[in-house]
């Protein structure tokens, strides 16, 4: 009995390994068909526009509000720490670098996974549960082209834009606290920032990060919806998975990307 249970454990371990590889394979084929298969984005520009609206524009409010607050908090905290070294004029530089390199791409991606990603999963899962995807297939329309591709592209386009908007409003929020409230000289807030922030190093790397995050988060969200069990529990489980997997993927990738970009190797 003992012996079989040990073998059984090994078997289950192997089983889960096979499952993981299988899901990875399926999701890659899924992505490949959706993006590179015949016919480009089904339904053309109109569908993409609609998705840009529901994925991008609808996430704008939460991104802007969070951006302002995070910028303000950063300025407040930074001011407290920096003023003990007498260099509170560097607060602009600190806010800008933190936002551009890290918080902009990462927090935007996390918020995006929660706001747009879960909605994408639920929407596609619901279409699957109500047989709308099957119905499309039988009408002779590839749901990967018609439903999945526009959503993928909308995510790829929206998230980097949202991340940049997040950083800008964050820096603006920081200047509001630091300059207007705490009395840092306006000129040194911006000049210190401009001296230390480089376009190719900081801004561009931040954008590259957000592009990678956009790819991963949207892919996970859309695949989870498409792959979910077509029941109410299946959809809610898939939605949870989207948020959890996407967040973990973003944080893990962020470390790798940061090490590649700013670590010295």
């Amino acid at each position, binding site marked *: 009995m003992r012996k079989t249970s040990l073998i059984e454990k090994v078997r289950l371990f192997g089983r889960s390994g096979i499952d993981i590889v299988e899901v990875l394979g399926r999701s890659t084929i899924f992505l490949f068909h959706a993006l590179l298969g015949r016919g480009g984005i089904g339904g053309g520009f109109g569908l993409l*526009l*609609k998705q*840009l*609206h529901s994925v*991008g*524009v609808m996430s*704008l409010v939460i991104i802007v509000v969070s951006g302002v607050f995070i910028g303000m908090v950063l300025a407040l905290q930074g001011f407290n720490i920096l003023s003990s*070294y*007498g*260099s509170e004029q560097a607060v602009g530089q600190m806010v*800008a670098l933190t936002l*551009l390199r890290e918080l902009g791409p990462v927090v935007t991606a996390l918020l995006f996974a929660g706001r747009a990603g879960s909605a994408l999963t639920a929407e596609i899962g619901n279409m699957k549960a109500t047989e709308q995807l099957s119905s499309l297939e039988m009408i002779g329309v590839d749901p990967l082209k018609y439903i999945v591709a526009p959503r993928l592209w909308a995510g790829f386009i*929206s998230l*980097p*834009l*949202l991340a*940049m*908007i997040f*950083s*800008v409003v964050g*820096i603006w929020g920081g200047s509001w606290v630091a300059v207007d409230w705490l009395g840092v000289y306006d000129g040194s807030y*911006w000049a210190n*920032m*401009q*001296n*230390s*922030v*480089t*376009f190719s190093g*900081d*801004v561009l790397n931040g*954008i590259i990060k957000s592009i990678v995050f956009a790819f991963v988060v949207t892919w996970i969200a859309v695949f989870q919806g498409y792959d979910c069990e077509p029941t109410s529990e299946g959809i809610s489980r898939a939605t949870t998975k989207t948020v959890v997997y996407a967040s973990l993927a973003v944080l893990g990738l962020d470390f790798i990307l940061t090490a590649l970009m700013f670590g010295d190797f």
Partner: protein
Amino acid sequence: MQNRTVEIGVGLFLLAGILALLLLALRVSGLSASPAADTYKLYAYFDNIAGLTVRAKVTMAGVTIGKVTAIDLDRDSFTGRVTLQLDKKVDNLPTDSTASILTAGLLGEKYIGISVGGEEALLKDGSTIHDTQSSLVLEDLIGKFLLNTVSKDAK
């Protein structure tokens, strides 16, 4: 009708994104339209550059006139060679100008300050500043100070 609002919304969203990129480029990172067009290069050798980093600013009389673009070790003289990129507008530096590594505040960042000499000849693109003053290393300073007190006591 509904289509119109969607289109306007997306249009504004895309515009906001582009505007954000422009702001990041121009206002935040201070990228100018033609960054590398009107600069020239100078070299300076320091015995110790400790703490100086690439992108540190180069100032003259407190005004930023350029930045450090590269730092490497000269194999022959075992000194640190710093490449400076200076504004073309400041092209009238005498050859005996002094470059020194300074610190902003007590613990602030390191930067290079240039003070003018009196020669007629001017530094050109690619020439070297010979008169340099190295970074003040706190440990050395303390070491010297201690040594002085010790030798004073010995007397």
